[in-house]
């Protein structure tokens, strides 16, 4: 048997391919040109503004930025630790509340009612007020063993975000088709087993993108604990601003927060894309 000769594309197809290649090259050139024009216009607009020199001095002073970067970075380490702790605790709290809200039966009425009341009130209450109440109100009770202001501020963030995340989890639980529960129950699994092995794994996969998105929001709101006093990145920048009478430390802190968020945002986009692809792959 002779080996099959390699497939030769027809002239029509070769013509199509070269046409598409020419079109692709043209698109890239066009995109580069329009980006250059928009960029130049923006640059001219900002740097040509009458107050640009003053703004550059008080917001973008490289000397002050270098001087305050170490202090702000040190503060950022507190934000990172808070972020990790608060994200894990808020996700756990949210999942717990969402599951409590699905419990049926008269015995669980008070649990259900409390969980519902919690999600309703803490989604409405501004985070700043919760932080003030926790960080200044709780120590005011003068109880033995009151934790530090940092821990109390973190608790305020966990309580507030737990309420949001509980609703996201609940949406995920409700999105699992009832036929899945019917299948699980028909096999003899109890309600709890059906939730644990069949409903929750599917629910969490489905709401992973919005959960991560809320975690991105949480990572910047962690900066609000500066209101309670601990020296985080924002507090350090504030001190810098007060001492130099220049806003550059704020810009430095802002850039650092964006850099901190980038990996998490990247992960969120990747998970969202993967979830969308899986949905399009069909059931």
């Amino acid at each position, binding site marked *: 048997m002779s080996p099959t000769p390699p497939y030769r594309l027809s002239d029509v197809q070769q013509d199509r391919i070269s046409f598409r290649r020419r079109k692709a090259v043209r698109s890239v050139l066009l995109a580069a040109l329009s980006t250059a024009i928009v960029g130049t216009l923006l640059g001219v607009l900002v740097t040509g503004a009458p107050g640009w020199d003053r703004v550059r001095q008080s917001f973008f002073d490289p000397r002050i930025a270098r001087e305050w970067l170490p202090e702000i970075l040190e503060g950022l380490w507190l934000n990172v630790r808070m972020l990790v702790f608060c994200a894990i605790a808020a996700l756990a709290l949210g999942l717990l509340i969402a599951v409590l809200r699905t419990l049926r039966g008269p015995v669980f009425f008070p649990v259900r009612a409390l969980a519902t009341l919690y999600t309703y009130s803490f989604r409405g209450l501004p985070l700043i007020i919760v932080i003030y109440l926790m960080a200044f109100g709780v120590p005011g009770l003068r109880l033995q063993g009151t934790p530090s202001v940092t821990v109390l501020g973190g608790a305020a963030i966990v309580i507030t975000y737990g309420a949001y995340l509980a609703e996201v989890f609940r949406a995920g639980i409700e999105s699992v088709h009832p036929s899945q529960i019917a*299948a*699980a*129950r028909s096999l*003899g*699994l*109890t309600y709890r087993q059906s939730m644990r*092995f069949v409903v929750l794994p599917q629910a969490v996969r489905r709401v992973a993108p919005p959960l991560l998105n809320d975690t991105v929001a949480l990572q910047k709101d962690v900066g609000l604990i500066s209101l309670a006093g601990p020296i985080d990145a924002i507090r350090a920048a504030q001190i810098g601003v007060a001492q130099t009478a220049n806003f550059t430390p704020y810009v430095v802190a802002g850039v650092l927060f964006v850099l901190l968020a980038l990996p998490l945002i990247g992960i969120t986009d990747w998970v969202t894309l993967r979830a969308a692809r899986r949905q399009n792959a069909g059931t």
Partner: protein
Amino acid sequence: MVLSCTDVRKTFGANVVLDGLTLDVGEHEVVALIGASGSGKSTLLRCVNLLAEIDDGVIRLDGADITDPRVDPDSVRQKIGLVFQSYNLFPHMTVLDNITLAPVRVHKRSAAAAREQAMEWLNRVGLADKSGSYPDKLSGGQQQRVAIVRALVNSPRLLLLDEVTSALDPELVGEVLTMIRDLKGEGMTMVLATHEMGFARQVADRVAFLDKGRVLEQGPPEQVLGDPVEARTRQFLARIIEAGRL
């Protein structure tokens, strides 16, 4: 009697789906439920498996009243297998995990023993190479065979099949029907709701024609499908023949 339904009534609001239905199923017997959409076939199967609560009447399994509210529904469902029209496999689990979930979690078998039993079944139905696949990588016929295996590994007293070939492409129906025929050969007691009259004729010991929530006529397949007594049965079969399904 393995299953005995007496005067079963089930309503959804003003809609009476089962209206005093009575049906008995003996050991090793295969009963095919036929009838138009909405005649109550699927609802009856869901009521037997206690997924739906009946509004009156009694359902007995091996002589014991399972519709008594003091009976633990989970313990009843452990003895009854149910296979759904749309398979309802768990999409986040592999074929093997779908099958071993109930044996391990409900029947407290060891993971190794459950896996071995599952693989034995998968070998028998020719799906051993799919044990690590996720359901969405399987054809409809393969998914439905996995769903049947998932019900069988719990060694049910009674297997309920709810239009298990209705969602399948015509060329995939055969592989599922072959499997059910094999099960009959092993003496499995089965109740199957079906639109496949040819299959009902081959595999069923008895065909029951449901109309308006009651068993209007029942008997050997040759009689009910070939020479029905009731006018409504004749009408139903005439429509089926017209649609080319017999």
